[in-house]
């Protein structure tokens, strides 16, 4: 997984479809990130934060009981053990340091399930920035705990009340805010999507998790790589992070999408939120609403590099249903004592479904977040059944 071209393209996807008023900011950000990423001092400061504040490296856990049950050797990259509960902190700490370097003092972000919002609010508190997080009204209701956490951390949470009132609309609102405040605010985008340089920059900031997983699995597997690397895909940031560690191996790369929000599986090429990518849309090109049990994956598009990986066949993408996800959520909890977030439960759901075909193979799953935020929602669904 290399650099995009000068126009920010991965193959036929990516680019920079933003209002002219945002072009100077995109160009500035591209230059600032290139400069910072090549600067050993910046890298060392970020590494220090990732270690001492976020708790990296995250461990690799072998799931003995689940493996026995499935007949598949399952390893988990434990991004759920990071500070704030998911992989999101890697990207946010990088972008927050970059914000400081650019002399800006306010972060704007969108959030679906709230994990990126919580991570952004956390970094803002750590560095003394103002912070505004846009969240769909529907998601604010589904994820009350994270709304409270963001407010506790000092962020302002603003409801996105247009359209489907979910993640897609939160992105629209965050972009509108950014257009109006671009001289003083940095848009801390939460996935490998949006206009260049975001898809590339966010993937680079998550590369750490892929590099760790590669090294850890080689140690565990006596110098070999896993046969299959699996991650859930909404925008696709955790998948981009783990895929980046294995792109140059023979490991199969598998992205798992919610059946109701399968941009790669059910979408066609389109342009929204600053990028050309696969997009769920109607016969006229109006963007369709995604539906998923997980607010974090409720997004009708996907990062452009995933579209490119699908195009070239380097990675494959598969849908799973909400019911399969609910089952996977329970299976991992019961067999390993790990309650996953609903997002990575998608990746596990695919492994459980495909277990007969995967028999005897080693599968690495990126456990991108922990399930605390989803427990209340799952209690409503499962209480009578347990």
């Amino acid at each position: 997984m290399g650099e995009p071209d000068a126009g920010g393209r991965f193959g036929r996807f990516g680019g920079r479809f933003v209002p002219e008023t945002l072009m100077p900011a995109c160009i500035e950000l591209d230059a600032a990130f290139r400069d910072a990423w090549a600067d050993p001092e910046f890298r060392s400061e970020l590494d220090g934060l990732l270690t001492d504040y976020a708790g990296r490296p995250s461990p690799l856990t072998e799931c003995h009981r689940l493996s026995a049950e499935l007949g598949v050797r399952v390893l988990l990259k434990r991004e759920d053990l990071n500070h704030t509960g998911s992989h999101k902190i890697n990207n946010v700490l990088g972008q927050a340091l970059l914000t400081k370097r650019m002399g800006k003092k306010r972060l704007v972000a969108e959030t679906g399930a709230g994990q990126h919002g919580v991570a952004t609010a956390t970094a803002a508190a750590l560095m003394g920035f103002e912070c505004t997080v846009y969240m769909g009204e529907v998601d604010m209701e589904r994820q009350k705990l994270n709304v409270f956490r963001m407010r506790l951390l000092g962020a302002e949470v603003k409801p996105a009340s247009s359209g489907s009132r979910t993640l897609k609309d939160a992105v629209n609102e965050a972009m509108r805010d950014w257009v109006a405040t671009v001289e003083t605010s940095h848009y801390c985008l939460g996935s490998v999507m949006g206009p260049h340089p975001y898809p590339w920059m966010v993937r680079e900031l998550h590369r750490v998790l892929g590099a760790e997983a590669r090294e850890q699995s080689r140690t565990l597997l006596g110098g070999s790589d896993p046969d299959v690397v699996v991650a859930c895909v909404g925008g696709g940031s955790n998948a981009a992070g783990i895929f980046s560690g294995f792109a140059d191996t023979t490991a199969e790369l598998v992205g798992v999408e919610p059946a109701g929000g399968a941009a790669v599986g059910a979408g066609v090429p389109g342009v929204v939120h600053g990028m050309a990518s696969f997009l769920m849309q109607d016969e006229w090109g109006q963007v369709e609403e995604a539906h998923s049990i997980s607010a974090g994956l409720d997004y009708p598009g996907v990062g452009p590099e995933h579209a490119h990986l699908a195009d070239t066949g380097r990675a494959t993408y598969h849908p799973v249903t909400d019911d399969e996800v609910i089952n996977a959520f329970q299976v991992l909890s019961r067999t390993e004592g790990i309650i996953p977030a609903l997002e990575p439960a998608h990746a596990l759901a695919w492994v459980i479904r495909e277990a007969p075909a995967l028999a005897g193979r080693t599968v690495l799953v990126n456990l991108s977040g922990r399930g605390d935020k989803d427990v209340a929602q799952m209690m409503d669904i499962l209480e009578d059944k347990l």
Partner: protein
Amino acid sequence: MDPGPLEVHLRARREAGAKLLVPYLTGGLGNWTEVVRAVADAGADTVEIGIPFSDPVMDGPTIQAASERALAEGTTPETVFSGLRGIDAGVPVLAMTYYNLVFHMGDERFAGEMAEAGFSGMILPDVPMEEQGPWRAAADEAGIETVLLAGPITPDDRLQAVCDRSRGYVYGVNLMGVTGERASLGEQAARLAGRLKAATDKPVLMGFGVSTPEQAVEVAEVSDGVIVGTALVRRLLDGGGADEAHRFISDLRRALDDT
């Protein structure tokens, strides 16, 4: 490239001493075709017709709401094209929309259908110069003039390139932000208008935030004219029809003519 009919029309009006007045309204919203005729009759020099999109990131709440309502009423690019085909607006007409609708249909087909429906120009706020290629080729071929936008923090080199490549007119965005009414437009608008006028002889129209006759006069003093969108669309959303649109645009026309 030689000026197209839209630019020729606007230059002629400017040379006759007029300040240019360009209303924006949402295609498909209520009796919009009657409103197009009414605002042209009230003295609009050209009319921008929005083709509604589900995710209009450059628009504020009023135009978003108008887009949502028009979409709910079944508006599609085709219904806007056929609506325009059915009327003679009497002035050149532009479309303003977001790129996915064009991309989805195909640049060439979209441009061809626009031209066939009677559109003279196109504004795509989410397509900066660097991404213009396929659309621009198709639009030029179909005779559609593509208007480019410049904003208050567009640096000099980009500003010049925008002016050089824009066709029809150059769209100056008065302020950093999305479409919507503002109490005050301030220094930023005047500075940008001055920079644009210094960079090009093409008509320079200023939009975003202009909502009253006083503001129109203020902004037109430093430019060739104004674009008025949200203030008109709000009246239409509130139930005002073609008559009210006619009154509002007539007031703006009078204010501009009296200066």
